[in-house]
């Protein structure tokens, strides 16, 4: 009889009973299909280090995050198990800094004791004055997990966005928000020598920056190429920080903007006017063996994922973080 903690409740597994069967027997509604480790319907998560023979077919990122297949899992020791990206505790977070990174992107730093992998995202919850309800929005964490206990976010400001406009106009350092998470699998999980291609659009820079910082702190040896796409050159931000990162490492950054613009010589970083899809197509005709990160709006991520896959990248080596617009 192995005791399993599932979302705070204890269930007991019979001898050789797969975890999935035990959870279903206990009345939990767990999606499942093939029961032979193929369909991945019964994906769950655990921080246990005793996940044996139950992670076949998962991506490296999923493995690092403790994802596993419940139908293949026969624990012989007590362990705690959760649903993937399930309802998590909300923790309080204090605003410690707020500044405009460019006229439409707000940099917000929160103080919160959260375990996460750079590149993951959280739900921020806040209650604007005059609104009865908490508003919840998902944002990617932009800083490495360096033990500082802070979380940085790049928040696109929409004048008519209830949440982002509240952050922009009302929230001040010292105020409290709530944070729920972390979620997502867009994390640094490459082999040390593997070339990385990081593709970000707009505030898609945030998770990508987290991944880059984590790669650097883990001593990543392969080449890293960041292509940051935006409509206008005015949309870029944090260029000084990026240029410092680039100077210190085997990191190559290119800003790719769509609109015609006369004077970009002032940028501290290489820039080019181009269509990002054509640019990737021309400059990265073969992506076999690459680890790819794609972060931005749906049209950007889905188009580039397909393009990178057709250029030879393995599906499992393409990590995607798609932003849902407006907040």
């Amino acid at each position: 009889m192995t005791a399993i903690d599932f979302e705070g409740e204890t269930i007991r597994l019979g001898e050789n009973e797969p975890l999935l069967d035990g959870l279903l027997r206990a009345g939990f509604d767990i999606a499942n299909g093939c029961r032979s480790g193929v369909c991945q319907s019964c994906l769950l998560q655990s921080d246990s280090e005793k996940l044996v023979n139950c992670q076949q077919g998962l991506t490296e990122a999923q493995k690092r995050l403790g994802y596993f297949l419940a139908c293949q899992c026969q624990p012989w020791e007590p362990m705690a198990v959760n649903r993937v990206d399930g309802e998590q505790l909300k923790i309080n977070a204090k605003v410690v800094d707020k500044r405009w990174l460019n006229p439409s992107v707000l940099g917000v730093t929160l103080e919160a004791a959260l375990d996460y992998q750079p590149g993951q995202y959280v739900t921020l919850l806040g209650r604007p004055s005059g609104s009865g309800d908490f508003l919840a929005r998902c944002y990617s964490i932009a800083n490495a997990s360096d033990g500082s206990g802070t979380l940085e976010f790049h928040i696109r400001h929409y004048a008519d966005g209830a949440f982002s406009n509240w952050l922009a106009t009302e929230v001040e350092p010292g105020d409290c928000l709530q944070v729920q998470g972390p979620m997502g699998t867009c994390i640094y999980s490459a082999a040390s020598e593997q070339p990385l291609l990081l593709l970000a659009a707009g505030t898609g820079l945030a998770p990508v920056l987290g991944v880059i910082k984590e790669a650097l702190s883990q001593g990543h040896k392969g080449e890293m190429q960041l292509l940051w796409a935006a409509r206008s050159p005015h949309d870029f931000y944090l260029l000084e920080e990026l240029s410092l990162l680039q100077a210190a490492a085997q990191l190559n950054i290119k800003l790719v903007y769509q609109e015609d613009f006369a004077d970009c010589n002032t940028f501290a970083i290489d820039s080019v006017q181009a269509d990002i899809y054509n640019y990737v197509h021309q400059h990265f005709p073969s992506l076999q063996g690459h680890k790819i990160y794609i972060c931005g709006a749906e049209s950007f991520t889905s188009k580039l994922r397909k393009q990178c896959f057709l250029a030879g990248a393995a599906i499992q080596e393409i990590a995607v973080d798609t932003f849902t617009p407006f907040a």
Partner: protein
Amino acid sequence: MSIYEKIGGEAAVNAAVDIFYRKVLMDERISEFFDTVDMENQHVKQKAFLTMAFGGPNSYTGKDMREGHKHLNLKEEHFNAVAENLVATLKELEVPQEYIDDIIAVCLSVKDDVLNLEPAA
């Protein structure tokens, strides 16, 4: 021993799935059916399909096949296009012809379900 085991089990499926999926996406006869699907989900399904076709742990039922494809109104030519891509994939991986024949026989066994046809009497 099943073909699945003979050709190398999960590793064989892993080798085949990206090649197969790439061919399908580039095939104009059928690529439109994949335009709106989530690639990661689809990749898992492709793996499950190949695992089944190779005679490995079987996760598909005829009912799943029928339900999963019904809304697409697929025609015989679409089914044949997928089968051709699968054969090309297996040839590229140098799978012996006799195994390919068996794998295609498995595919043909779910054809009525995929195309949502009445089972032959």
